[in-house]
Structures are given as C-alpha cells and as structure tokens.
C-alpha cells in the first residue's frame, strides 16, 4: 500500500476529536457486500449497533433481482454526506478470480516486484504485459465507478480490498464439480493457490495505484481473517470459490469501528 496514503489515514485517525459528531458511514459494493449485510443482520438480531449502512448494487439477471440500491441512487445518498463522513467502497473485487480459479491449459506464472523466482516449468508472463491487461478491467467499469464516487461526495472515500483467495483447492473443487466437468476442462482442475494469491496481490497493487490517483484511501482485509500465509482463513470461507462469510463481515465491521468509530445508523 502507498505509504503516504497510510500515513495520512492513520494521522487522521489519531487526530479525531471525541467531541466531533460520529461520522455517518455508507458502504457500497457488489457480491462481497453480502457478508457485511449478513453480519449487520446478526448484530441487529442481538441488538448490537453496526457502524455503517451497507448497500449492495441493484441488478436484474435472468429475471432475478439482486441487491438493493442502484449506483446512481447511492451516489445521490453520498452527495448529502459531510466531510467528516465516510464512504466505504467494495466495488468490484473478483477480477483476480477470473484469471486464477480454473487451471489454464497452458500453465503460466508471473512475478510481482520483489519476487525472486517464478514457478518452474510454467510460462512466464511479464508483469507489465499482464498488468496492462488487468488494468483495462480495473480501470474500466470499476474504475469509472470509483471516480464517480469520489466526485459525488465531500466525505472521505475508502476502498476496502476484497478478501484474499482461499488456499484450499478441495474446497473450491467441491463447490464447482459441475463446472469443472464441463467442456474438456475436467482434467485441468483448480489453479495452484500461489497463482491465486499472486493475482490477488496484483489486483490489490493496481487498485491501490488507481485509488492514489483518485485520492481514495485503501483499507486491507481484516488481518484477523488471514492465515499465516495471507490467505483467507478457512473459518471465514463462504461456500464457494471466492467469497467470504458473515463472520468475515463481522471482522470488517469491527475494522470499520476501529478505524472510524461507531456510527449511529445501521441498515
């Protein structure tokens, strides 16, 4: 993460005045928002206040309505916020999984800055070639949404990185047996966890670069949700290949409370 962004972020936290009204915190994202919304529901059931309102992108697919708030409506909501309020973005987030879940028939690897070796026997893709391709996705729809969000509000905008990948290949395979059985890819199987982690790190790095340009702060995933290798710890797995569960959402809520203080509103 960019050191200056982090410094500014923590200096801001340190200077918070307890007399200043608590910030209103709005969160917006797509599928990763689900874990947060379920965590809020759990808190509500126990009468515990949540620090934020979580909105999931409203869309219709195959006649199925998902989410609750259109992006345009969310922009309108953020327009009414104060400078001391916070918008947490979870926009996008799963691009890395598109590249790194199903094993590619032509095995490949790449090296991030600082890596000292590449996977032996796999075809090396130069970082900058892969980054150009990956960036076209990140800076496409998601990048435009982040820019629009930044433009729409006076509030601080913080982007929460998506959960890191799962290390357990059997877990992924178990939940996608039919997909892996399709179209001659049964033998391909699931990619190596190291490739999934490398793509997640690539995405995180490129998103950070974009956020720095847009004056958006970046929050990493809650450290307590990670195993010692940086993967999502199994107790935070949702029952699919890429998402985290409501317990992870609870850690995010605690992370938000630690970072910004509890807020009055919940949803």
């Amino acid at each position: 993460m960019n050191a200056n962004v982090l410094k500014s972020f923590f200096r801001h936290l340190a200077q918070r005045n307890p007399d200043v009204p608590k910030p209103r915190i709005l969160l917006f994202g797509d599928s990763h928002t689900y874990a947060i919304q379920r965590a809020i529901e759990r808190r509500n059931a126990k009468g515990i206040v949540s620090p934020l309102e979580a909105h999931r992108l409203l869309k219709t697919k195959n006649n199925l309505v998902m989410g609750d708030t259109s992006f345009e409506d969310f922009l309108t909501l953020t327009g009414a916020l104060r400078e001391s309020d916070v918008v947490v973005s979870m926009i996008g987030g799963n691009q890395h999984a598109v590249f790194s879940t199903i094993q590619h028939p032509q095995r490949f690897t790449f090296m991030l800055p600082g890596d000292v070796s590449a996977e032996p026997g796999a075809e090396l893709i130069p970082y900058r070639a892969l980054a150009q391709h990956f960036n076209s996705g990140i800076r496409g729809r998601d990048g435009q949404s982040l820019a629009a969000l930044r433009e729409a509000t006076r509030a601080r905008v913080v982007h929460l990185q998506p959960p890191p990948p799962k290390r357990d290949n059997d877990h992924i395979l178990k939940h996608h047996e039919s997909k892996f059985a399709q179209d001659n890819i049964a033998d391909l199987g699931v990619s190596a966890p190291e490739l999934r982690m490398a793509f997640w790190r690539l995405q995180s790095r490129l998103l950070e670069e974009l956020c720095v340009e847009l004056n958006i702060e970046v929050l990493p995933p809650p450290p307590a949700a990670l195993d010692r290798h940086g993967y999502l710890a199994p107790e935070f797995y949702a029952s699919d290949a890429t998402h985290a569960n409501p317990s992870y959402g609870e850690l995010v809520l605690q992370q938000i409370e630690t970072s910004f203080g509890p807020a009055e509103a919940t949803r």
Partner: protein
Amino acid sequence: MSQHPYKSLPDEAFWRRSVAAPAPADVDPVGEFELRITPDTRVATAGSCFAQHIARYLSRSGYNYYVTELGHPVLPEAVRKAHNYGLFSARYGNIYTARQLLQLWQRAFGLMSPTEDCWQEGEECFLDPFRPTTQPGGYVSRAELEADRSQHLAAVRRMFETLDVFVFTLGLTEAWRSIQDGAVFPLCPGTEGGTFDPARHEFYNQTVDDVIADMDQFITALLAVNPTAQVILTVSPVPLMATAEPGAHVLASTTYSKSVLRVAAETLRKRFAAVHYFPSYEIITGAFNRGAYYADDLRNVLESGVNHVMRLFMTHATGGVVAPVRQSGEDVIARQQRLSQELVDVECDEIALDPD
C-alpha cells in the same frame, strides 16, 4: 555480324528492357530464386525494421509465419502485440547487424554470456541491453528480466531448430559494442536505456569480411542443428538514421553499409546452396520508381513499396498459390477462459443464496 554472350540473354539482363521501359509496378528484379514455400512451410523472420513488414505480410497472407514466442493466450492479442509478441518469430526485437545475429545464436545456445546484461533505469524498471525496447516499461526486477530472457532464448533455440525457412534482413554495419567482451548492442547505450561510457563502449563498423565471416559462422551453425533449413537474405532499403563513422556523411555511410551487406549477401548465396537472395533493396531503391516508395523523411518505406516487394516475394516463393484461410473453433483455452468468467459471474450472483 559476330555472335556474343549478350545476344542470348533474356530481357531481365538489360536495363532498358527490364528497368527503364516497364511501368514501375511491373519491374521485377527477382532473378534466379528457386526456393518454394507452401502454406505449411514454417517461415521465421528476423532482422532490421524492414523485416517487420515481411513478418506482418506473411502473418496476414495465410502462410505459416512461424512464431515460437507467441505470448501467453491469457493476454488478448492487442496486449501481446503492444508488448512485441509476434513482431518477429521470437521476441528479440530488431537485429540490425550480422554480429548481433551471430551473438543471438551464441547466447541462445549457451556459447556466450555478456557481462553487461542488465540496465537498471528505475526502482522497478530493468532493461535487457540486447532488446531494450521489447518490453514496454521494462521489467519490474532483475529476476524477472533474467527469467524472461531465459524463456526467450529457449524460444529462439526452438525456432532455429525447427524452422523451414529463415528470412533475415541485413540492416546495418555500424554498431556499438562492449570493450570488455565484444557484445554488440542493438542500440547505442544511452539512447534507449543504459549509460554510455567511452571506457566500456566502442564504435564498431563491420567490414565486408566481418559480415561474411559472421554470417558464414551463423549459417554453418544453423545447418548443423537444422540441416534442411533454407535462408533467405534481404538487405534493408531503410537508410541509416545517423552515422557514427568519424568524419562521414550519413549518405556516404548508408551507401557503404548497404554495399557491404549486398556484397556479403551475394557472396553467401554463392557459397551456400541453402542461401537465397531476395532483392527487396533493389525494388525500393531502384531508380525506376523515382523515389516513390519512400516517405517524406526519405527513410521510411511506404506501404506501396512494401506491397511491391511482397507481391513479388509471394509470386516467386509461392508460385502465386493462395493459402487457405485458417479457421479455428473454440479450443480448450477459449473454453477455459469462458468458463472462468462464468464461474465468477455465477458466484457473484448466487452469493445471496449462501447459508450461514
């Protein structure tokens, strides 16, 4: 009237009949050219800028433009192209001189390991001195540079060992080399990376003997690992951008350089049965077209000139046989990519169905 040898010569042996009289587009200076390629012939290319045109034309024409370093298919074609995959048969960039080609061979087969092998331009920017413009933005680390170079040189070896025809366009005689070990750089250090140091770098202008010796060594080595390989030599018609020959005018240096290369090509054609010469240089520079094939900068070759060259090349090398268009359905790679996207899309849509 006495008989003499000229009496029986064909029209192409006479300037007036074959150069001055025909319409420019009809001038065909290709003499004896016995090589034939078919749609299955693996044709690899290397050389100076002009060789890029040959590569581009072949790849569009349905013939087998042979590329052993394609770039990984997870990258879209536009990205691979932007990163110089497919520009030549492997990602070596422009090879301007015979010495550079010979040393590429030597590096690929482990016979040479240059001392000056990495130029660091920034914290995360490392250039390969032997192809400094090939990776846009450079490599992010020395380790990445070395890993990619190892992969590249393996692709070069594979290319030489398995190609059917190697088209090489001789471009220049002038080069800059390492004083320490003689390693020739494609570009002068300091121009597109690296730092020029007169204590480490020296100017080197090849003589005709040097070019012939380098090419002889290369062709002999190629035929040793690939006995049926055929070589087509051409001379780039693109003039020197600048000369470093002390006291020389760039026009005179261009004439020297192209003359040396043309003599070397002819010498090698006569020396090796596997070597052929194709007169792209003559087609572009010939007085018959009155300079019409050059752009306003008098250096770059216009598409009309390239078309003339490639039309004659295809006519003589293929006998005018039109290659069938290669069709391809969705293969296992495309399926993997489609299913990967679907998997993530479905997950993102179905996460709401996930029980606690």
